[in-house]
């Protein structure tokens, strides 16, 4: 019944204009309570719109296999060839696929139990994808559509982050978020906004008069009519948070297998028995799918592809640290419309380091790992600068793109597979996935333990240490403590990155952490050298030397982000001696 309605709707949407009715050949069928779209459409936008349309018919999921002319289907592949097979023949209770914030939060939550667990990440480090390419905002939970899993996980996650950040020894703060009223009509909508915040269970909201707004956010652009304030909105450094979760999990016994891509899941009698990777095949009693933008592909490996992902790009600009003093709160675009869109409309966020993030954009575009930015995207972001009188485009020091992994239902999937009893999905974790990660991890671990109960009795890990042993950050210590540390280890006194004030000792710590860095980008994520104004212009050779020394490799083998990304490609004619004279 609903299938025929869906078919009719799709026919209308694919041929309705200019008399070429029916020109497009789209097949619709039902498979295991999901709806599958097949055929060919001329452009990407139409593919996504049909997917959204199909999501409105009450199926479990939409599998959108429409081909788009000129766009090739992307295939999952290892990021670089592996030279060894250390996982071959081994056996684990739980295998987590994906080392983003979701996978790493799951790994740490799992470490509270006596299980053997391995996390597979295809890149040379965790947090290499979406988890380091976002706003770092721990959303209040107001923006998510009421009744969605996103809304519930967000509010729970928001409450969990503060104590978690304390255990992980990472920065967390709650500047709160302002939705500015740009017109009296917007101001009149306050009761609707308050009702929505209440429905979502958000921890507090306030009406701010124009006077209050000006007092609290003096540089806000003139002509505002007040604001809707959400005090629970917080911020973290997303890559630091992800790395810290991973380090804590590793220190508590979870094994991390980096540069390892899950390529297949072998089943027997409906259950996954073996995980096939480029670094060896191994047995796993339970598999967790936390593969971000590839989570539909991983579901497919187990024959459980009941949903598919579309990619929503987001571009952000970063302003110089000097810009941070002009901004006190997170500020969202002053438009009521944004509340109903598929993502919040972007705005301004002051990072924990004091820079200002401007963004993100939201655009449907193919490319699961396409982080190329364009000039047009940056221009689009300049509108956010108009929220604050003191900010200007000349403050931009860098910019980047991220890709949200979205289902057509536009909601998270956190569940035990209906078809494969020892598979748990944490898939389609789009925004606010960072904010939600700790709550998602709690549920995933509960589901994984339930699945594991079939084969094993699991007890709590009494040896779990919640507090992460964080390496010192010298620039933040009082001088006396700093001096004492340098006296013990003089490498803390040699500043290598002068923009961010990072010492040799801190870089060595990053290279020896429980989840050791092995590339320049991985060092950057842990200790920040090269993240300042000069972007590594001065410190790169010095950081390379330290990396080479710690890893015991020649200088020209140091990489930016793992094999295939060397900084240099061999020696000059004279070699180092000639250069040094």
């Amino acid at each position, binding site marked *: 019944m609903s299938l025929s309605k869906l078919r009719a709707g799709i026919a209308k949407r694919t041929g309705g204009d200019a008399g070429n009715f029916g020109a497009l050949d789209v097949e619709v069928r039902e498979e295991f309570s999901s709806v599958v779209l097949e055929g060919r459409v001329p452009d990407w936008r139409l593919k996504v719109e049909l997917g959204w349309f199909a999501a409105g018919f009450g199926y479990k999921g939409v599998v959108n296999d429409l081909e788009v002319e000129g766009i090739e289907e992307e295939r999952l592949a290892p*990021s*670089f060839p592996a030279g060894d097979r250390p996982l071959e023949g081994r056996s684990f209770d739980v295998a987590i696929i994906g080392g983003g914030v979701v996978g790493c939060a799951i790994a740490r939550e799992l470490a509270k139990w006596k299980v053997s667990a391995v996390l597979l990440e295809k890149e040379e480090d965790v947090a290499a994808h979406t988890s380091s390419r976002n706003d770092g905002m721990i959303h209040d939970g107001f923006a998510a559509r009421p009744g969605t899993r996103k809304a519930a996980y967000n509010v729970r996650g928001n409450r969990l982050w503060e104590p978690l950040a304390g255990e992980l020894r990472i920065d967390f703060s709650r500047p709160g978020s302002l939705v500015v009223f740009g017109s009296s009509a917007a101001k009149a909508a306050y009761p609707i906004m308050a009702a929505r915040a209440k429905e979502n269970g958000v921890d507090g909201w306030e009406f701010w008069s124009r006077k209050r707004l000006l007092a609290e956010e003096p540089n806000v652009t003139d002509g505002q009519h007040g604001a809707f304030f959400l005090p629970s909105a917080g911020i973290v450094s997303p890559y630091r948070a992800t790395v810290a979760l991973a380090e804590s999990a590793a220190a508590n016994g979870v094994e991390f297998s980096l540069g390892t891509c899950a390529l297949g899941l072998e089943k027997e009698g409906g259950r996954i028995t073996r995980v096939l990777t480029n670094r060896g095949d191994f047995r796993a009693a339970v598999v967790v799918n936390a593969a971000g933008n590839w989570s539909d592909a991983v579901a497919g490996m187990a024959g459980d592809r009941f949903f598919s992902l579309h990619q929503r790009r987001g571009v952000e600009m970063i302003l110089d640290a000097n810009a941070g003093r002009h901004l006190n709160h997170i500020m969202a675009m002053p438009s009521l419309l944004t509340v109903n869109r598929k993502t919040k409309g972007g705005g301004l966020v002051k990072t924990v380091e004091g820079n200002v993030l401007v963004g993100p954009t939201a655009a449907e575009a193919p490319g699961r*790992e396409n*982080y*190329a*930015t*364009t*000039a047009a995207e*940056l221009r689009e972001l300049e509108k956010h600068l108009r929220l604050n009188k003191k900010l200007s485009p000349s403050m*931009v*020091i*860098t*910019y*980047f793109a991220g890709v949200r992994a979205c289902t057509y239902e536009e909601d998270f999937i956190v569940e035990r597979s209906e078809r494969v009893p020892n598979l748990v999905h944490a898939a389609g974790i789009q925004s606010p996935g960072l904010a939600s990660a700790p709550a998602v991890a709690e549920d995933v671990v509960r589901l994984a333990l339930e699945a594991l109960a079939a084969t094993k009795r699991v007890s709590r890990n009494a040896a779990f240490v919640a507090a992460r042993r964080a390496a010192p950050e010298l620039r933040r210590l009082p*001088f*006396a403590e*700093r*001096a*004492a540390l*340098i*006296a013990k280890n*003089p*490498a803390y*006194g*040699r*500043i290598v990155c*002068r923009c961010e*004030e990072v010492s040799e000792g801190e870089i060595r710590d990053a290279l020896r952490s429980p989840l050791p860095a092995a590339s320049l980008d991985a060092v950057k994520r842990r200790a920040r050298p090269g993240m300042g*104004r*000069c*972007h590594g*212009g*001065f410190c*790169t*050779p010095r950081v*390379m030397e330290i990396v080479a020394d710690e890893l015991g490799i020649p*200088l*020209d083998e140091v*990489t*930016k*982000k*793992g*094999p*295939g*990304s*060397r*900084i*240099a*490609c*061999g*020696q*000059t*004619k*004279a*070699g*180092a*001696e000639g*250069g*040094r*004279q």
Partner: protein
Amino acid sequence: MIPRERRDVVVLGGGPAGLAAALAASESGSDVLVVEREERLGGILKQCVHDGFGLVRFGEQLAGPEYARRYIDLVEGRRVAVSLETFVHSVRREAPAAARRAAAADGDPGFFVLTCVNRDRGVFELEARALVLATGCRERTDRQVFIHGDRPAGVLTAGLAQHLVNIEGLLPGRRAVILGSGDIGLIMARRLTLEGMEVEGVYELKSEPSGLSRNLRQCLEDFGIPLHLSTTVVEVHGKRRVEAVTVAAVDQRGQVLPGTERRVACDTLVLSVGLIPENEIAESLGLSLDPATKGPRVDQAGESQAEGVFVCGNALHVNDLADYVSESGEAAGRAAAAFAARNGAPAARGRLVPVKAGPGFLYAVPQFVDRGRPGKAVLYFRSNATLREGARFAARAIGPDGAPAATLLEKRYAALRPPEMERVEIDVALVPVDAAAVSLELERKEGLRG
């Protein structure tokens, strides 16, 4: 308690500017300390192994490290104290301590206290009467010129490429595209070619090259490396390592002309897109920067608007020749020593007469002439356009009524180009005591005929 060391003058930066300043201050009788954050003295010259230094100073062609060596030897010969691999965390001004205040003269500006970090001493403080900022400059990055596309390895600034090749003995890649025709980019085009890399071409956004003529000749023409003017790199391609870049022609405003995009295969993109004076410390001391030079505003001795803070070399403005850098360092060092020697006694500083560079100048340094400093004042300037037909330069003192009061200097140039810095001297005694300004004028040759 943080241990503290006292000096008359502290020089920040051990490049040619800082070395010359330290030497001059020491020769003037000051107790000087040079703070350098790197492991060796010499500044950027350590990696400039090419010839082309010292023609003005020493009348001979030296390589960068040789030029630096001469100053290092002189500084070491005078046993000037040097603190290497030392990071300056912050600088503040401190009023004279209570005990000393009794003895201190009225208006004593006090001391500078630098909180420093290094391996051997941990955290320590330096106290000085006068401060010389000789911190050089840094390079603009790919993000500052808004290059888009992927983020692979293989995108680096020319200075970093130079460091890798000349200091570490590493080749950055096999086939390079160079963006920007600044001198470092040109020099690296030659250097990389000599090392066996292929340099596909140098691309410049502007319609004229921004490097010195001699470098265009010796580094590109002699090696058959093409220079593409009014062309820029718009996109980088490659997931892990650069695989290609897209280049495109631009109009006069620098906007890309659609349809001119072209893909160029390469594994390395070298950026030579400008230098910016390093002035975080100057800014932390409240000094405002001249938007044209990106350095603090100073008088002819390099003294900034903050008493006792002197600035020289590339921290002041980006110089084309190290010889001029040394010259500005000497002036600053001498003046800093004199300032320290007064030991807080009321300022001998005279009236600061603003130097106003008229249309036709990119900038002029210094921004003030101190009437109280007798003798010659050296002015450096750049024109903002290429004047092939030649030009006439004039410096005039403007009286309080706004009318020209005295002509300080007139000079003809056969040609002027923005990349080439010009140096002139004026006699400060010719500037009337009540002058409102020193006005600089530049007239094109055509104008002269008319």
